[in-house]
C-alpha cells in the first residue's frame, strides 16, 4: 500500500507538468494575444512587438514553458499581464480563500440537508414520500442561480432587510448566508440522489436481508448495516467536492458581489492573462489529484475489501 501511495505521489508532478504543457500550448497557439487585448482599439504592430519582447512572449514556446515551470517550482507564478506588476499569487490567494470558504459552507449545507433527506427517501421507498423528497430537491436543483439569487436578494435583503444585498466579510459575516444557501440547497439534490440510490442498493443486499431475518431491530439495520455501507459512494463525491473548493462560481460571485476566484478566472481567459489561467488550472488540478489520492486512501479504511495495488 505504501508502494502504491509512493507511486501515485511520483506521478503527481508528471501529471501536473503535462497539464501545464497543454494549457500553455493552448494559450500560445490558440487565437488571441494578451498584448493585443491590452492595446484594444489602439493597436499598432510596432508597440505590440516591443511589449511582447519585453514580456518574453516572442521567445520560442519551449523556452517560455521551461521558464514558467522553473519559476513555478520555486513558487513564483509570474505577474499578471492585465493587473500590471502584480504577482499572480498575491492576486489569486485571497480570492481562492474566499471561494474556499463560501464553497465549504455551501458544501456543509448541501450535505447536511442532502444526506438525511436521501436516507429518508430510501427508507420510504415505495411510498409517496420518496418521490416527494426527490422531486422537491430536484426542483431546487433545476432552478438556475441567476433566478434564485436575485430572488433571495429581493426577499431577504430588500423586503425583510435581514442582510445586505451583497458583499463579503468572511466566514463569520452574515453576508455569506444568502450565497451559501443559493449554492448549497441545489447541491443537496446531488446527495439526496446519491444517498438514496446507494441506500436502496444496500437495503436490497443479502446481508441486510440476513440481518432482518435474524430479527435485528429496524433502527440497527438501517444505521449499522445499511447506512454505513451506503456512505461509500458519498465519500467519493465528498472528495471531489472538496477538490472543487478552490473553484469559483461565476454567477453567484457576480450577483452577490463576492471577490472569489470565478470571475477572475473567466476574465483572465478573455484577456489572455496566461499567468492567471495557468495558476488557476494548476491549482485546480493539484487539488483534484490530491483529493483523488485521499479518497482512495479513505476507501481502504472504510471498506476493507478494497486494496490498493
Amino acid at each position, binding site marked *: 500500500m505504501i508502494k502504491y501511495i509512493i507511486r501515485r505521489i511520483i506521478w503527481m508532478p508528471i501529471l501536473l507538468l503535462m497539464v501545464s504543457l497543454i494549457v500553455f500550448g493552448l494559450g500560445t497557439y490558440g*487565437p*488571441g*494575444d494578451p498584448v*493585443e*487585448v*491590452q*492595446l*484594444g*482599439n*489602439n*493597436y*499598432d*504592430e*510596432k*508597440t505590440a512587438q*516591443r*511589449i511582447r519582447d*519585453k*514580456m518574453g512572449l516572442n521567445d520560442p514556446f519551449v523556452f517560455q514553458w521551461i521558464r514558467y515551470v522553473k519559476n513555478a517550482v520555486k513558487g513564483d507564478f509570474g505577474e499578471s499581464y*492585465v*493587473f*500590471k*506588476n502584480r504577482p499572480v499569487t498575491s*492576486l489569486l490567494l*485571497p*480570492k481562492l480563500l474566499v471561494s474556499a470558504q463560501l464553497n465549504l459552507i455551501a458544501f456543509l449545507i448541501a450535505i*447536511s*440537508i442532502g444526506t*438525511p*433527506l436521501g436516507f429518508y427517501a430510501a427508507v420510504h421507498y415505495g411510498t409517496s414520500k420518496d418521490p416527494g423528497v426527490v422531486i422537491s430537491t430536484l426542483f431546487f436543483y433545476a432552478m438556475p442561480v441567476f433566478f434564485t439569487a436575485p430572488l433571495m*436578494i*429581493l426577499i431577504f*435583503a*430588500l423586503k425583510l*432587510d435581514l*442582510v445586505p*444585498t*451583497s*458583499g*463579503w*466579510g*468572511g*466566514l*463569520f*459575516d*452574515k*453576508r455569506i*448566508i444568502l450565497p451559501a444557501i443559493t449554492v448549497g440547497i441545489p447541491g443537496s439534490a446531488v446527495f439526496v440522489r446519491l444517498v438514496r440510490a446507494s441506500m436502496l442498493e444496500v437495503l436490497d443486499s443479502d446481508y441486510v436481508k440476513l440481518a432482518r431475518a435474524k430479527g435485528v431491530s429496524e433502527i440497527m439495520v438501517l444505521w449499522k448495516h445499511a447506512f454505513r455501507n451506503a456512505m461509500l459512494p458519498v465519500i467519493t463525491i465528498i472528495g471531489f467536492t472538496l477538490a472543487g473548493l478552490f473553484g469559483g462560481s461565476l454567477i453567484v460571485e*457576480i*450577483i*452577490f*458581489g*463576492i*471577490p*472569489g476566484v470565478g*470571475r*477572475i478566472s473567466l476574465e483572465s481567459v*478573455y*484577456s*489572455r492573462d496566461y499567468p492567471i489561467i495557468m495558476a488557476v488550472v494548476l491549482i485546480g488540478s493539484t487539488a483534484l489529484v490530491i483529493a483523488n489520492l485521499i479518497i482512495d486512501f479513505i476507501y481502504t479504511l472504510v471498506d476493507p475489501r478494497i486494496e490498493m495495488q
Partner: protein
Amino acid sequence: MKSNIIKITKYLLFSIFIFGIFSCGSSESSVEEQSIERNSKVAPNLQSSTNNSSGKLDNIFRMNYSDPPTFDPHLVTDTTSAGIIVELFSGLVTLDENLDIVPDLAESWVVSDDKSEYTFTLRKGLKFSNGDDLKASDFKWSIERAAHPDTGSYNAEVYLGDIVGITKIIESDGDVKDAEGIVVIDDHTLKLIIDKPKTYFLAKLTYPTAFVLNKKYVENTGENWIDKPVGTGPFVLIDYQIGQVLKIGRNDNYWGDPAKIEGVIFNLAGGTSMAMYENDEIDITGVGLADLERVKDPNDSLNKDLVDVPPQFTLSYIGFNVKEPPFDDINFRKALSHSVDKALIAEKIYSGLTKPAYGILPPGFPGYSENIKGLEYDLDLAKKYLARSKYADPTTRPRIIVTIPGTGGSPGLDTEVISDMWKTELGVEVEIQQVEWATYLQDMNRKRLQVWAGSGWQADYPDPQDFIDILFETESDINHGNYSNPEVDELILKAEIELDNNIRYALYNEAEQIIINEAPIFPLWFDTDGYALIKPWVKGYNFAPITVPKYKNISIE
C-alpha cells in the same frame, strides 16, 4: 419514522442557528480587519462601511466600480484605470466641464511663434501627496520614464510621440534616456518642443500618460511604489483590496480647493447594483433598460433620484473592409447604408435612448458640425445604388460575413435587425459570426475582417483628430477597413498643422463629409447610456463625457 424528520429539522435549525450566532457576533467585517493602514490621517468614515440611520455615509461617496488594472498613469490603457488615476495624479493641463483645456499644475503657458515650442510655468509651491516639492525636473523625468522601454507603456507613442526625442527613447533598447525636446529651464519652468506644429498636442497632455510622478519617491521605493502611489491629484489612495474595495481620501497637499468629501469608497466586488442602491449601500447607479420603465413612473419611490446622463463621446458603427469584395464597390456600400431605418431602430429597440448617427463626430464634441449630411434612410436610392453596383446579382455576389465580438451567442439586437433589413429590403444576405473578444481584436487589427459590428470608437481626447485622422487616415493602424482617399489624407495633414481652430475644424468637417459620402463605415449610434439614479444627499456630481476628475466637487449633505 417520525424521528427522522425531527432530526432533519434539528439539523436545519442547527445550521441556521450557527449562522445566526456568527452573524450577530461580528459587526466588524474581515474586509476591514485585513485592510492595511496606508495613511495616518484617514477619515474615520472611510474605515467603516456602516450606514447611519438616514442611509448615507457622512462625507463619503460610495459607488460600484471594477478593479483598475493599474494605478500607474504611464501604463494605463483603459477607462477603468484612468477614472481612478485622474483622481490620484495630474498633469500640466486638464479639461474642464466644457472640455476646454485649462491649467492644472501649469499655471500658464506660452506657445512660440512657430507653434512648436510650449513653455509652461508651474504653479508656486506645488507638492506631491507625500509632502515632497514638485519641480519641473519631475516632469522631464516622468515623460522620459513613460517612454522608456522598461516602463512598458502601451501608448507613450500616441500621446507623447510628438515631443522631440521621445520616439528615440521608445525605440531604443533602453540606453537612450534623454529627450532633447523636454527642457527644464528652472524649477518652475518647463519647455516642450514638438516635431511640427500640432494644435491637438495640448489635448494629448490631458491624458494620464503625460502625468507627473514623484521622481525621488519612485526611484527610492522601487517597483512597488505603485502599491502606495504618490501623486498630485485631489485624492490619495487609502486602501485597495483586489476584487473587494478601493478607497480614496482627500489629498491635503492638493494645489487647488481641497475635495469637499473625505473620500470615495468604490465597491469592486460586484453585486446587484439596483438592489444595492435601493438598500442604501451605494449612492449612484446606472439604470438599465429593464428597470427604466419602473423608475420613470412618477409614483415610484426612486423616480425623484432619476437623472439624465449626457452621452459619452462614442460612435458605434459597422465597418466595411473596402479592399474586400463586395465592399470594394462604393455603390454597394451606399446601398447598404441607405437601406436601414436607424431612426426606427432607435425608437423601437432602444426606447429612444439612442441617437442615430449620420456623421462621425458626436454632438457636443469639438469640431462637431450640424451641416454634415449623412446617408439617410431612402429605400429607392438604396435600390438604385444596388442596381448600379457590380454586385447587384445575388448569385455571383461574394459571401458576406459580419463578425461581432462576444460569447453570448446572440448578436446585438441592432445587428440582427440591420441584417434583417438588408435582407428584406435589398435581398442582401449576410451571415453573422460571433468570435470571442481577443480573437476579434486580432483579426480586426490585422485588417482581416470583411464586415465588423459590435464595437466602436470612444474619444480619448477632445479633438476631431481623434476620430477623423485615427480612423480614416490611410496609414493609421486603427483604420481597420483599409479606407484610403488621398484627398482626405491631404485635408488631415493640413488640419494637423493648421493653428486656427475654426479653419482646422472646417478642414476636418470637409474630410468627414467626404468619408461619409464614400461610406467606408456605416455609422450607427452615438452613445446609448441615458439614465442614472443619484441619492438626494449627493450634490455636485458631474457626468463628464470623457475621463476627468469628478469627485472633488461632490458634497454629501
